[in-house]
């Protein structure tokens, strides 16, 4: 064949070769279709381990009970028993190493998440004692009178504050 046929063909071959070489350099070796097939599993396998190693912040109440057995037992028989420690005391992270102490949420806002009255008769919310946050001692913190670990008892620390429930 003549030269004018071969020349563009070489150029095309060079371009294709170049694309293939750059592709092998850029695409990681663990990129593939893996378990879920081409449509749903086309990914970099090593990214699964990246997600598996994501740091855990909430270590669950079981870890809290290892050291704070007294507080755990205090809560055990109360109507608040199903509330995990970390919901109010904040996530564990690597406590007691880091942080040394946890930032406890003592605000009204936390209590009224469940205890603000809402008029939905058939929802689970209706089974929880509810108040109107605008009318029920709006300027006081709930823990001034109520003991959060067991709301049936008065708060031993703050009972003398002079506010009657």
């Amino acid at each position: 064949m003549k030269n004018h046929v071969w020349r563009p063909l070489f150029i095309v071959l060079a371009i294709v070769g170049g694309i293939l070489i750059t592709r092998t350099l850029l695409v990681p070796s663990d990129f593939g279709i893996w378990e879920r097939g081409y449509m749903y599993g086309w990914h970099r396998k090593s990214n699964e381990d990246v997600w598996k190693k994501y740091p855990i912040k909430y270590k669950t109440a079981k870890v809290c009970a290892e050291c704070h057995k007294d507080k755990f037992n205090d809560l055990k028989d109360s109507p608040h028993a199903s509330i995990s420690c970390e919901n109010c005391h904040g996530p564990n992270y690597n406590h007691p190493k880091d942080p040394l102490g946890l930032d406890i949420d003592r605000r009204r806002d936390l209590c009224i998440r469940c205890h603000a009255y809402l008029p939905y008769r058939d929802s689970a919310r209706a089974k929880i004692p509810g108040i109107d946050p605008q009318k029920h001692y709006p300027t006081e913190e709930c823990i001034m009178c109520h003991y959060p670990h067991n709301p049936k008892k008065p708060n031993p620390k703050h009972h003398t504050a002079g506010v009657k429930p």
Partner: protein
Amino acid sequence: MINRREFCKKTMMIAGGLAIPLTALEIFDPRRLHAEKDGKEKVRWVFLVDINKCVGCGLCVKACKIENDVNWDANVTRTWVERYVVTKDGQVNIDSPKGCRDGFTTQKIDQAHIGLKEIKPEDIAKGFFVPKLCNHCENPPCVQVCPVGATYQTQEGVVLVDRSWCIGCGYCVMGCPYGVRFFHPELHVAEKCTLCYHRLSQGLKSACVDACPFGARRVGNIRDPEDPVTKIITMEPVNVLKEEFGTKPQVFYLGSSKEVK
């Protein structure tokens, strides 16, 4: 000249002959075979939401945001809780201020720019709360539309995003019929619920499941017939969201109602 019998025979042979190599390719892909040999079908995470137990406290949303480092003040969240208030005249009011990050503490319905809507308690026929999260679909449309392979489904059925590979085109955000995807406000890549893949891999439950005091959220392995979540899904009347999209969602709802979308 070809007769009718010969014509039919040859047509069938050609069609059959064409079909064989396609299926053979599917069967003899060595990488696929290897993956299937290594414990496929052992674990498939599914999620169960009990609407009857949810009180709209939003502790799940709080825990999720902190556990997964989703910016606290940005109005985006991997999971959220919707409030449905149906009035006696049939009107459905839905809201989820800040995704229920701070819980539902007022009776007023948040209508964004329109303002707060007050509904008289005597007009309310029913009110309930619906937690929402990624459905970790068996056929995830968000994964199909990704042009670079940055989002994928693991063999446990969890849909994840490869943050270092995502180009931020937003196709998946548009492709999800449930609206669970968004852009990470700091990393500027697609963000979504991972079902706390890091916690599940280490034997813990998802952060929202551990945070829920009422047992309204549960996670389980549908491949394990002894799993209590599997038992409920197989034996009790559960529902899924937007079944008509064909995505085969794997978040099951107990106590769902026709108003839930």
